């Protein structure tokens, strides 16, 4: 009987109810969409960074500090024996870093010169374009950086560097290939050349700066090397996304507030407004538990209808976002963030969807239940008069 009456209340009260149900459905949708956006972003960015840069974790030569370019001169050392074995088996690759200068269009620009094995298969960097068998030095460069210094494939750059003894040398390098990536740490202000050539140029045979491991948490200690696991290496990204999530939560909370306001309107406000209705029901002999049940069910049904309404427009929209991506309409590079293409592919897990539904559902039930319980404690005459007193009926 209660469900029947609750449905009657909903369908009887017309457009306003549906408007509120719509706003409620919007709150489901926005929460799910926004959360999916951030989950998708994090997943995309993490995957890209692993594929292009981090793989399963890295050993850093102990002097190496990516935030301090002056450490670069000293951060190199011979690869530990055990890791050499790994490299041979394609389970790891090593990279040598050194500060250098290029002169695109005659302007000086400080960069990081990176040496990498052209045969490597661990990272997505297209090292197969590098040739170490030719006399000239060939190099890879990221598309953003290439655009910045205005250079094209096949053109040459003047490169100047210092060897381990501080002796300057310079040579022309050929742009063998320009690659596109979203991972800024392998593209901004840097040039990739074959490792063996760089070692020769610096007079540092067999020495490297970073050893990138295929397997995660390969946790052995080696003298002179610091192991950095993925948690450490991805911490910046995670913090940044968290900050953005919190920043965007302003919109999120605004919408949630709107949604709660809608619930408030349908439930608390209208339940107080509907006190007379409850008084009438009491006067006709509806028991207190039944009245509480009725109005709480009504609230819950709002939430259920909102799920269906939200599903009608939400599922196609979310599917669309998932396929086509959300155009985030901002310059990801400006955020200094890796892993962000122009469009982002949100991820909607069942946990997220279910969690949101339960969250909204509980909110609705609580805000329906509490005021109803309060009103149902009134004497029928008081409820009918619309006066709030604390006197109980019994």
């Amino acid at each position: 009987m209660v469900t029947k009456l609750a449905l009657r209340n909903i369908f009887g009260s017309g457009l306003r109810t549906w408007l509120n149900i719509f706003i409620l459905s919007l709150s489901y949708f926005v929460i799910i969409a926004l959360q999916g956006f951030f989950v998708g972003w994090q997943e995309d960015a993490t995957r890209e960074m692993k594929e292009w840069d981090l793989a399963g974790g890295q050993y850093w030569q102990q002097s190496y500090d990516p935030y301090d370019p002056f450490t670069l001169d000293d951060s190199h050392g011979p690869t530990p024996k055990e890791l050499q074995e790994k490299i041979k088996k394609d389970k790891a690759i090593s990279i040598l870093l050194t500060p250098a200068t290029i002169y695109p269009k005659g302007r000086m620009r400080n960069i990081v010169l990176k040496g990498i094995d052209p045969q490597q298969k661990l990272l997505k960097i297209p090292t197969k374009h590098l040739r170490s068998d030719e006399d000239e030095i060939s190099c890879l460069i990221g598309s953003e950086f290439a655009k910045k210094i205005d250079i094209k494939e096949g053109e040459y750059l003047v490169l100047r560097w210092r060897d381990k003894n501080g002796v300057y040398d310079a040579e022309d390098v050929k742009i063998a290939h320009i690659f596109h990536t979203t991972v800024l740490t392998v593209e901004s202000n840097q040039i990739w050349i074959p490792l063996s050539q760089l070692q020769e140029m610096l007079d540092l045979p067999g020495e490297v700066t970073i050893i990138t491991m295929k397997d995660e948490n390969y946790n052995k200690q080696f003298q002179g090397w610091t192991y950095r696991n993925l948690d450490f290496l991805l911490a910046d990204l995670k913090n940044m996304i968290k900050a953005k999530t919190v920043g965007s939560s302003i919109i999120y909370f605004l919408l949630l507030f709107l949604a709660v306001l809608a619930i408030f309107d349908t439930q608390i406000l209208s339940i107080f407004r509907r006190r007379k209705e409850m008084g009438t029901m009491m006067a006709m002999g509806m028991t207190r538990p039944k009245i509480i049940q009725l109005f709480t069910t009504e609230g819950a049904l709002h939430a259920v209808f909102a799920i269906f309404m939200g599903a009608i427009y939400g599922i196609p929209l979310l599917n669309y976002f998932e396929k086509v991506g959300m155009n985030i309409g901002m310059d990801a590079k400006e955020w200094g963030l890796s892993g962000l293409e122009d469009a982002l592919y949100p991820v909607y897990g069942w946990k997220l969807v279910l969690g949101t539904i339960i969250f909204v559902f509980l909110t609705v039930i609580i805000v329906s239940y509490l005021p109803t319980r309060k009103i149902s404690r009134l004497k029928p005459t008081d409820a009918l008069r619309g006066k709030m007193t604390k006197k109980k009926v019994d």
Partner: protein
Amino acid sequence: MNKLIEMKNVMKKYPMGKTDFVALENIDLKFSEGEFTGIVGPSGSGKTTILNIIGSLDSQSSGDVLVMGKQIAKLSNTKSARLRSQKIGFIFQTYNLLPVYTVFENVEFPLLLLNMSKEKRKILVNEALKWVGLTDKIKSKPAQLSGGECQRVAIARAIVKEPKLVLADEPTANLDAENSHNILKMMKKINEETGTTFIFATHDAKVIKYITRKITLLDGSIAQDEIVSGG
């Protein structure tokens, strides 16, 4: 005849600022089964208050009220609700129809509380609406009805479950003469055929013509209690 209602030395006061306002005082009344009684008196004399107390919608400040052998002030919430749903039909001065329900659904509501079958509900609701002459407005909402039509829906809702006791607060206030007479005749007929007790609160001369007992209230006290001819 069996005693249906007994009020002993009933007093009702409402808090009014620092002092209390006494709405009823020294009310000693007995009602028997099958009565067709009117409580008359000027506005503010306490008519509605008496009906509310009898109907267990409100409680007296002191004194005893027995309805169908039960001390209603001592009934639990659920028991007094059950008493109302099973035995008492209430016609409110202000109608108190449920705004989101149609006419049919409003009249059906008390039957839903009694868990009556759908077929039976339909028969009873249609019958009650026929009595009050509203068969053509079954699907209307209260907001689409005139005052008199609302009043008739309220009447149909009170009598549809064939209660033992009908408490009717100014049931004819908004009805024209013809409708008033039709409805009063119908109520009288129910009263005679089923022994349903009717207690009216009214100052409508048309109602007074039908009642068989007239209780006059003045400032919350009984001024007169007399048997009258009745229609």
